[in-house]
Structure formats: C-alpha cells, structure tokens
C-alpha cells in the first residue's frame, strides 16, 4: 500500500533527475502503469518510494509508514539495478544475497533465470551483463520472493521480443500491486485492467483506465468537459474521451502524440 500526498522530490546530487512536483498517488492492491517520455520524472517517483530521492515537501507512506522511518519492510521490491549492487558480486550471489536478506529461498528467482534462458549470466558480475540482460535480472529480482508491492521502471527496455512476451505474462499473473513505468504506449493493449497515469515534466495526470486508453484523445488547448488538462512548458493540452484531435492509441510514445497535436 502506497500513499503519496502532494509530494515534491528531487533526486539528490548534482546531476538532477527531473523533479516531481505535487504528486498525489494512492495504491491499495491495484496495478497501475505510469506513461511518460524519458526524463519526465517516472523513475523519481519510484525512487521517492524507495527512499532514494529526497522528498522536499508532502509525504510518502508505504504500508502506512513514512518512508523515512521504514526499516525491515520486506514486502516492497523493485527492478532498479542500482539497489542490487551491494557488493559487486556475480548474478548468482546477488540472487542469493537478496533472497537471504528478504528471508526467502533463491529457487524462485533461479527458476525465472532459467525460464528467461539466462543461466550463462549467473557467474558474471552485474556490470558485465548487457543492458537487456541487466534489465531482465532486475525484473526477476523484483518479481521474486513474494513481494506485495512491485516497482518496475521501464521493465521492457532493451528486452528482446520473445522475452518481452514472457515478461508481460509473468507481470500480468503476479498477485502483487504494481507500479510500472514506461514510455511505450502500446503496452497498454496488454494491461487493460490496470489503472493508467500520464507524467509530463514531473506532473502526474490521471487516473484513467487502461482499458479505455484506445478511446483517449489529446487536443491542444483547454477544452470544456475534458477529462483532464495537461499543463506543460510547451503549452496547454486536454485529454478527451471518444473524440478529439489525435488518438493516444495511434502513437508509440507520448511525445510523438504531442508532436502530432502541434
């Protein structure tokens, strides 16, 4: 269970991720997908929940507890690889370490490694893997050890088609609540029962229903009776249902829809 109330965050450090501004998000057992272009703040939302990004105002609660106060909460997991670099170990030892730290058995994760045909990566260190292999190992670590909440950041990036289909099937049949970040609109065709948000320039817009995604349209300007108004640095847009300028389902990613509306 995740509750983000009017939270603003900035990833700490000199190389700034896009800050997220006044985010509100409530998740209680559902699966949601957040769609936004690269650099829009998708990852920062996950980092806020994980305690990796400083929350400058508002609050972020996980299972009713402020994220700053959380310890030994084993029900959350993520595919962000930076949290799996504890000791520079190989893939096999990384799986064993995180299973041990979660109080679980590594078999479930090792079975998934076999299912994805990545047995040859087990003796390699994480930095020796290709970005696609790293992504799948991250997804495996996120989806193993019976989590209640899974945070997936661009889980399909650099993943080949065969493994992508396998991964979507596994994600769909997972019991846990899920936040899935992606810049790909076409994935919505597979996630029809999920909640849907859009994120542009650090602002979250939603909630919509993914099953209705092919009925959503983007329009330039503010239209009366629209579902939501999207304010960006490059103009004001409206999202409408059933009719409008450009159907969201016609584009592969969100930025191209904005280009079309222009």
């Amino acid at each position, binding site marked *: 269970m995740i509750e983000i109330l009017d939270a603003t965050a900035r990833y700490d450090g000199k190389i700034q991720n896009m800050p997220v501004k006044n985010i509100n998000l409530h998740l209680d057992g559902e699966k949601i997908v957040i769609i936004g272009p690269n650099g829009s703040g998708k990852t920062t939302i996950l980092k806020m929940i994980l305690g990796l990004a400083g929350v400058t105002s508002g609050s972020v609660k996980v299972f009713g507890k402020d994220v700053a106060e959380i*310890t*030994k*909460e*084993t029900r959350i997991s993520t595919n962000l690889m930076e949290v*799996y670099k504890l*000791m520079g170990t190989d893939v096999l030892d990384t799986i064993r*370490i995180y299973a041990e*730290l979660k109080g679980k058995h590594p078999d479930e994760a090792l079975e998934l490694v076999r299912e994805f045909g990545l047995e040859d990566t087990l003796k390699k260190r994480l930095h020796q893997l290709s970005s696609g292999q790293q992504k799948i190992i991250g997804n495996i670590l996120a989806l193993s050890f019976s989590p209640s909440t899974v945070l997936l950041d661009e889980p399909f990036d650099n993943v080949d088609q065969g493994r992508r289909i396998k991964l979507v099937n596994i994600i769909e049949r997972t019991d846990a609540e899920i936040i899935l970040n992606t810049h790909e609109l076409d994935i919505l065709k597979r996630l029809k029962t999920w909640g849907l948000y859009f994120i542009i320039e650090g602002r979250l817009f939603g909630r919509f229903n993914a099953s209705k995604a092919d009925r959503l349209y983007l329009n330039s300007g503010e239209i009366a009776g629209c579902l939501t108004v999207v304010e960006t640095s490059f103009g004001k847009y409206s999202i409408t249902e059933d009719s409008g300028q450009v159907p969201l389902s016609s584009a592969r990613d969100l930025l191209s829809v904005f280009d079309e509306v222009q």
Partner: protein
Amino acid sequence: MIARYFFSSLLRDKSLWGWGIGFMFFWLYMGAFVFNSYSGTEEEWLFTASGWFSIIGLIAASIVATTISYSIYYSTSSLVYVFKYTNFSPRSYVLNLVGGSSLVSAVIGTIIILFTAVLFSIRSGFAVVPMMPVQAVFLFILTGIFMFLFSLIMVILVNNYLGMKNRSFVNLLPQLLSYIFGFSEFGTPLPMSVIYASPFSDIPRLLFMVFSGKESPQNMSSFTGPVVNSYILLASLLSWIGVMFIISMLMIGKIRSRSIEEGRHL
C-alpha cells in the same frame, strides 16, 4: 552470513590481486635483491626483512581499504534500499563487512608473510622467518578491520557531507597516509607521542615486532633510540578500532543514496 559473499567478491577483485599482492611482491623483491647489497648477519637480515614487511604490510592493507572504499561508493543506493526493504540492519552490515575484511586481510597477510620469508631467505642464505607468525596473521586481521572502518567513515563523510568531488582523494587517503607514515620511518624518526597515537605508525611497528620478535626502536632506519612499547601500540590500535566501530555504527544508517553516474562524471 553476508560476510562470505563480500569475502568472495573481494578475493575475485583483479585490482586487489594486482596492486595488493603483485605490486607488493615487486617491492619486497626490490627490498630483498635490489636495495640490499650488503652481507649481514642472520639477525641483521631478520631486522631488514621485518622493516620491509612492516611497511609493505601497511601499504597492502591500505590497498584493501581503497578497494573497499570504491565498493561502498557504488553501493550507496543499495545500502539505503536494503536497510529499508530487507531484514538487513546497519549493524549487521558493519559486522558482516568487518568479518569479510578480516578474512581478506588474513589471506593477504599470509601471502605477504610468505613472500617476505621466501624472498629474504633466498637473498640472505639464512632462514628468515617470522618469529610470531600466528600473531602476524592476527595483526593483519586487526589492520583489515581498522582499514575497513576507516574507509567506511571516510566514504560516508564524503558521500553525505563533503561532496563527491573529494571522492578520489578520500578513496586514496588510506594509501596516502600509509605511504607518508610508512616511508617517514626511513627518515627522521617521529616523536614517540605520534608513534603511539597514530594507527598508521602503530600498525607497521607492531608488524615489525611480530616478524622480528623484537620491539621496534624509535629510529627505524638506523635501528637506534629507545624501543617502543608494543602493548601501548596495540592498545592504541584497539582504541582506534573501538572508536571507529562506534562512529561507523552511528553513521551507516544515515548514508544517502548517490547516483553511480554522478560519481563517474566527477
């Protein structure tokens, strides 16, 4: 026990073997065969070997510390995550890594002891062997613990408070201090108060003592001056370890996540 993974990860680190073992072998070889052209008595050779062993032992331990520093820098996000979202506590982390560092230091220490004995025995024609080999390994373990805690505190200070631009300097600080204190022993002798107070003086002098079986003199280059009390040196080193252990326990839970890419860019 997470310590075994840390131990195995460190032992598979090629730079640790290259710099911590290969480079140290080179210097011990230079010490035995190039910088020593005289024929001395068995006791003189034992003292000479002990001198080189003490400095090389300190520098090898500091190379382990630098390796550990880099490893901690790359794991700040992981640490924040595991302290929140796994059963791992900051206390367990410090204890496990103290364990891992001890084992690695024992392995490296044993190799350095063997290198020193073999090289100086071949060069001198005498059996130049450490007088207290078990204590020598134990001392390497203490040195490893000290270096790990020192690195950990330095990394947290830089990561949380001083800024990443100081990272490279601080990573190399254990080595810099080891070179400064180690090689200063060959020049003007340090005052007794500094010798007792500085862990970077305590360690080589204790290493000298366990190899030679004799307490080190104040002046290590001419082997003259009053001898240094090894019990005080050991008490000083243990005090440093104790204090740093408490500080690291207090600080590790406050470590902040830093982007790995940020470190690479600086």
